[in-house]
């Protein structure tokens, strides 16, 4: 029983507790206007992670939103960056949009990208 608990704890430490990268709408109403089709990720030759969010505005309205990205190292510690502050982006009507962000350092390997309404 003790061995089982130890194994479980070890597994939780190694896998379950590790932070994961994700893209999140802060407000559900955003999904009325845009959707995220895919998230491209790559590690460049210089070791920096690069992400690109590809989405689409299916409506007939030009919309502006804001986004911010937070980065973590492999141990789950935050890697500070100027890109962690809110920035605006445009989603043209009936068109795709892209958000491209490069990690602030080689150590930044996990990201959380938040999309929010421009004026809350």
């Amino acid at each position, binding site marked *: 029983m003790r061995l089982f608990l130890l194994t479980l704890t070890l597994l939780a430490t190694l896998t379950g507790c590790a932070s994961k990268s994700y893209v999140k709408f802060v407000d559900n109403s955003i999904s009325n206007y845009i959707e995220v089709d895919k998230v491209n990720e790559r590690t460049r030759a210089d070791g920096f992670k690069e992400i690109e969010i590809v989405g689409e505005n299916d409506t007939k309205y030009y919309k502006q939103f804001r986004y911010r990205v937070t980065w973590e190292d492999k141990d789950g510690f935050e890697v500070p*960056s100027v890109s962690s502050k809110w920035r605006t982006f445009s989603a043209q009507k009936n068109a795709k949009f892209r958000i491209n962000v490069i990690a602030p350092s080689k150590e930044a390997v996990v990201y959380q990208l938040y999309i929010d309404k421009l004026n809350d």
Partner: protein
Amino acid sequence: MNTIKTTLLTATTALLLLSGCADKVERIDMNNDKGAQVIGLDYRDFDQAAAEATQSLLKSPALTKKDGSRVILAISTVTNDTMQHIDTDQLIKKIRIELLNSGKVLVTTAVGSNTDSMNKDARALKNDADFDQSTVQKKGTLIAPEMSLSGKIVQRNINMGNGKQQVEYYFMLSLTDIKTGLALWEGESVIGKRGSGKSVAW
């Protein structure tokens, strides 16, 4: 009785003047500022320009050396060509911090703008008997820069004719390879604002 009344009235008036009537001061939430835009440049504009510049610099191959070592960067002249009293360090410092933290760059404070005078002052201690000479920096230890970051912030005011004005701010930066004199990277961020012609953009 009249003395008491007068004293009370004076005290109340003084209290009102000192506290109740004072304008309320709020601290800005720098991470989620929903305050109205101003026609001049504020910290949000510098944040945006710095974020765009650093993202563009990190994406460019200009700062990647084949052996993986860091680029030694000097900060050259960044001109404020706006009507505002701006310390261009408001922009450059953010870029310097981000580039330093990226692990790709080391910034020299021995030459360029914003030099640290201690680089020279500490070397002037040679032959000063008050100092242990073995702790004084030797000749030839300063590292010369390989690249230089320079730029300009430009303001353009346009009268829109209906009592409104448009103000455009251009943040223009260049990264130069000092060995060859070639610009390896160029970046430009534009921030435009429209407001009342009565607003003052300086």
